[in-house]
C-alpha cells in the first residue's frame, strides 16, 4: 500500500506530527492485525514528501515545541486529488503457484493434481482462519478490519475457484505442448501501459 499517499491524505485533513501520523495510519489499516508499519518508514516518507514540496513543516506553537508538525501544500493536495481519481492497479500476472504448476506438468514424477491439492488445502486453511477471525470481530469498532477481511475472503475464494477451474481443465492443458507455456513472457507490463498520470510505485515496506 502506498504509505506516501496515505500520509498525504492525512496531512490534507489537518496538521499532524510524526507519532500522531503513525497512530492514525494504524487506525485506518486495522492496527496490528493489519499492516505492521514501522515508525522509521513514516519519517523517511515524510522527508521525501517534504523534499518534493508536497508537504511543509509547520512552525511549532505552544505546548509541544520539540515536535515537528507537517501540513499538506497546495501541490500536495493536487497530487492527492490525482491519486484519488486514478484507479489502483493490480498485478495478477505474477503468480508463484502458476509457475509451480506449469513446472509440475512438465516434470517427470511430479503429480500436478497433488500440487493443486496441497495449494487448495492451504488456501482453505487460510480462508477458514480469515473467516473465523473476521466473524469474531465486533461491529462497529472492527469495521475497518472487517472490510479488509472481506477482501481477503473474496481473494481467497477467487483463488479457490481458479484452482477448481484449473483442475477441471488440467487434462486439456496437459495435452498442449508445454514449451509454449514455458516461453511465455511474465512479469509486470511495461510502465507506459499504466498511463502517464499514475503515481510512481512506492517500495515495499
Amino acid at each position, binding site marked *: *500500500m502506498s504509505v506516501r499517499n496515505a500520509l498525504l491524505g492525512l496531512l490534507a485533513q489537518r496538521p499532524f506530527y510524526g507519532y500522531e501520523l503513525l497512530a492514525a495510519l494504524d487506525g485506518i489499516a*486495522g492496527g496490528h*492485525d*493489519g*499492516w*505492521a508499519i514501522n515508525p522509521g518508514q513514516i519519517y523517511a516518507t515524510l522527508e521525501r514528501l517534504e523534499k518534493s514540496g508536497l508537504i511543509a513543516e509547520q512552525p511549532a506553537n505552544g505546548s509541544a515545541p520539540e515536535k515537528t508538525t507537517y501540513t499538506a501544500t497546495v501541490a500536495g493536495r493536487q497530487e492527492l486529488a490525482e491519486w484519488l481519481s486514478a484507479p489502483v492497479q493490480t498485478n495478477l500476472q505474477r503468480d508463484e503457484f502458476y509457475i509451480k504448476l506449469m513446472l509440475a506438468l512438465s516434470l517427470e514424477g511430479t503429480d500436478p493434481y497433488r500440487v493443486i*491439492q496441497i495449494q*487448495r*488445502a492451504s488456501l*482453505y*486453511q*487460510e*480462508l*477458514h*482462519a*480469515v*473467516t*473465523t*477471525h473476521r*466473524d469474531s470481530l465486533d461491529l462497529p469498532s472492527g469495521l475497518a478490519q472487517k472490510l*479488509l*477481511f472481506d*477482501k*481477503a*475472503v473474496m*481473494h*481467497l*475464494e477467487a483463488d*479457490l*475457484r481458479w484452482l*477448481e477451474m484449473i483442475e*477441471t481443465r488440467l487434462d486439456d492443458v496437459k495435452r498442449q505442448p508445454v514449451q509454449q507455456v514455458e516461453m511465455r513472457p511474465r512479469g509486470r507490463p511495461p510502465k507506459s501501459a499504466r498511463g502517464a498520470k499514475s503515481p510512481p510505485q512506492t517500495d*515495499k515496506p
Partner: protein
Amino acid sequence: MSVITTENLTKIYNSGTTAVTALDHVNFQVQPEEFVAVMGPSGCGKSTLLHLVGGLDHPTAGQVRINGNLLTDLDDDSLTELRRRQIGFIFQFYNLIPVLSAVENAALPLMLDGMKPIEAHDRAIEWLSRFDLADRLQNRPDQLSGGQQQRVAIARALVAEPSLILADEPTGNLDTRASDEIAGLLRQVTKEWGRTVVMVTHDPRIAAYADRILFLKDGRIVDDTLLEAKNGSSYEAVTAKLKEIGD
C-alpha cells in the same frame, strides 16, 4: 464413537441401459462435534452421499453406521424413527410447509414423534428465539425472507435434539450476506451446541466455515482436509495473508 462411519459405500444408478456409479467404495468417519463440508464438482456424488448417510436412500453396496446403528439393517419404520430422533435435515429450498407458521414448522419433528403440541411449541420457540426469530413466530414461510426461512429450517432440524445435522446446499438459494449468516449458524451448532454437521456445498466461502472438507470426485473421496492449520496459529496465517494482499 464416530457419529458417521461408512464402509465401502457404493451407489449405482441404473437408468435404462447405462449404469452410473455415483459413489464408489467410499470410506470415511465423522467424529462428534465435527463440522464437515462435502465438496466436489456437480455430479461427483456429494448429494448421493448425503442421502445415503441420512437413510433417505439405500446403498447398492457397503454400509453406513450412524451412532453405531447399521442403517442397512433397519426396515423403513425403524429408519424413519432414526431419522426423526437422531438426524436433522436442512435443504436448499428450506422445504417448510407453506400452510404452517414458523413455530409449527419448527415443531414438526416433535409433533411427528407424538409430543404434546404445547410442549413441542415451547421447544420450537426456544430454538427460534436463539436464531433471532422471536418476533416471527406466527409468520407463514411466505412472509419470511430466505435467510429467515432457512433459520426456521435449522431450528426444525435441531428441535428434536439430534446428534447429526445433514445440510444439502443450505445456502444455495441465498445471497452472500444471508449465506454467511447461515454458515456461521451451522458452525455455532457444532461449537456451541455440540452437534455434528455434515454439509454439502459447492461454495468455497461457505465450505471454509467447516472444520474439515471432504473432496469428492467421480464418486470417490480424493482429499480430506482439516482446516485448522496443523502448524502455526491461524492468527499468523491471517496477518500474513493481509500483508500479501496489501502489496
